[in-house]
């Protein structure tokens, strides 16, 4: 199978690595090859976190410029920071809830208005899905389940190589049992939200 390439972009603490691992293990359980790249250490602590996953025939997890099939964007500015991974073919899920870094409060950098980011995303990406994952996560019962909202969204993207049930099974093996109810609810809210957009 030609590799399906997923890029996740977010901020330290949002659960991007956990989400990637759930996707990766689900692919492995399905009998597909999968490789993934993550960064730890100094790279976390509230900084930018990205992971690349390739499902199918691939040796390297790193995705070439313009070559992502799907970008899962945990934060709007971080979606734009990862824009070079995207081209006409790329599907993009964008969480609209912002995380403003301290550099903005200190006045040493600025965060563009929501409309600027959304207009830029709309003008570039051919297949763009915007959702407020933070709001949906709170609706599910805990803002921390934001990553599962986005995972549910990914499951609804045309061409995504894993089925909803396969991802849910992997969630069960990777998340604490007592959080499953909320995480499952978050996953389904994300899934339904993206389904409605088709």
């Amino acid at each position, binding site marked *: 199978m030609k590799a399906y390439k997923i890029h996740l972009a977010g901020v330290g603490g949002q659960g991007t690595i956990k989400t990637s*691992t759930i996707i990766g293990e689900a692919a492995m359980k399905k009998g597909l090859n*999968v490789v*993934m790249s993550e*960064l730890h250490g100094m*790279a976390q602590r*509230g900084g930018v976190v990205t992971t690349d996953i390739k499902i199918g025939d691939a*040796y*390297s997890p790193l995705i070439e*410029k313009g070559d992502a099939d799907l970008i899962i964007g945990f934060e709007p500015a971080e979606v734009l920071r990862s824009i070079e991974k995207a081209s006409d073919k790329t599907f993009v899920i964008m969480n609209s809830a912002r995380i403003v870094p301290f550099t903005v409060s200190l006045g040493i*950098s600025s965060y563009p208005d929501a409309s600027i980011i959304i207009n830029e995303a709309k003008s570039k990406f051919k297949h763009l899905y915007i959702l407020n994952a933070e709001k949906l996560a709170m609706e599910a019962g805990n803002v921390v389940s934001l990553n599962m909202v986005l995972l549910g969204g990914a499951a609804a993207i045309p061409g995504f190589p894993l089925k909803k049930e396969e991802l849910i099974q992997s969630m069960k093996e990777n998340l604490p049992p007592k959080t499953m109810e909320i995480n499952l609810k978050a996953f389904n809210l994300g899934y339904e939200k993206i389904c409605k957009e088709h």
Partner: protein
Amino acid sequence: MNVEKILLEEEGRKLFLLGNEAAVRGALESGVSFASTYPGTPSSEIGNVFSKLAKKAGVYFEFSTNEKVALEGSAAAAAAGLRSFVFMKHVGLNVAADSFMSTAYIGVNGGMIILTADDPSMYSSQNEQDNRIYARLAGVPLLEPSNPQEVKDLMKFGFELSEQVKLPVLMRTTTRVSHMRGIVKLGKIQFPVSKGFFKKEPNKYVPVPANARRMHKEMREKLEKVEEIANATEINKSYDFGDELGIITSGGAFNYVMDVVRENNIPAKVLKLTLTYPFPEVLVKDFISKVSKVLIIEEVEPVMEQEVLSIAGKYKIPVDIHGKLDSSLPRIYEYTPDIVREGIEKVVSHKTEKRRYFKTNVTLPVRPPILCPGCPHRATYFAVKKAVEKLNLKNVIFPTDIGCYTLGIQPPYEMADYLLSMGSSIGTGAGFSHATNQKVVSFIGDSTFFHAGLPGLVNAVHNKANLLVVIMDNRTTAMTGRQPSPSEPINGMGEEVPEISIENVVKGIGVKFVETVDPYNLKKAEDTFERALKEEGVSVVISKHPCALITDSEKRKRNFWVTFTINQEKCTKCMICINEWTCPAFYVEKDGTVKIDPLICDGCGVCTQVCPENAIEVRK
């Protein structure tokens, strides 16, 4: 995935493992008996997994005080006939280098693997040194895995090679291999031998000059044997996709080569080298004789490229050799598939399809890593800054060290002026105090103090330096993922151990002004720093409060979490909390209102002492 699966999952099953996790499984499948490390990204997870599994697996494991001690422990275990595994980040091998350089002279009985995790592009390091050069310097065989499966398999290969030739083996990973996740097919766990026996043979183990001269000769003879193995082994293998170009590659770069060559139908032969020192001369000579052009694709230094150039020169082989030295590929930073594709395009006639990708002109906010909400280092920096201001000290030099607190380089703290390596803040601090008339305040963490700060402090006292050393004791090795430090009453095996009192150690060295303070009490901390700054000679303040990640997890367990909010009626928008305290939970609304994000607030409450209007209150 439950970490225990790395030990318990059966032979033949598959796990989705990090390169670092695969290293542990590989060691366990090889019957490793002794493992030691000092944590450092990108190698840290190896130790974290051992720390969880060692007891159950019957393996001795320790977080050592530094890499040199870790390597010495493992060398002794190998001398006693056990299989030992020591692992560290690339710069850790510098700390261990003095002993490392003797290991190939002395040799081993049980197999010994030394893993160095290099960090091309410096995601969490001060340099991107290429430790493949160390293998050549020390005379140690070198393995370069490309993915987690290979990391695991090469552990077994490495132990067997080590025992066959009686040399330790160096395994070089990079961040992209250590932190790559992939499917790993498991082998059988082999039970470790619990104790070895050291047979005394001083002529074999003590490199006094007469012995060392003989040992060096023996080492070269052993390496000749390894070179024969490198020429013949299946782990050095070639792939044939055409004739226009020969590519020689290793480690993580191999992955990019395979994807780029196959996706773009590049007519190339690929030689993947895995046992790369001693360099397989016969194998490479044959490979470059078959092609007219060869491109060497490796991270970071042109190590193999120079080997290939010398082979081509020695045998007068008419082949064009490309790589870093002719600028076909970049000389610095890690590679990516894009860089590899562009490099290949420079030397072949075959052009790949032009890549289309988007760009944006929108200016994005800078998002550097930052001290966590509730981090005690923030309070320490704040209090020291206030004390310095109060005494009206100018041009104070702040030598810093390696840990989360290096983030003190950022505004508004800007209290990190000079850094060389682990433990350097005290040595350089003493140096600055002798070389200038400026006041010096050195910052160092508890784990780093024990790692390499101690000799610096002894030196500072012995040579009458004039500086304040602030030991930021957050009760853990925080940056690398909270491994225990010697000042904690627990070790890497999870055993209760005596807490080593930093205060007693410092007093024992003879420092007169030694005080311990909780930085969460800003007023008291500021007062302590002020008095310490007035002292002549070496003074030490231990700023002691647990890492916020520790207190947060305790609060989570107890399900007790308060957060703070700003009483807008009291707030005068003086912005001290924003501009001087700068906790990531604080933000300013468009209309200038200052707010605290309850989802980020850690509830430490130290900000209540910062606010001159007492406007910060517990959120009801």
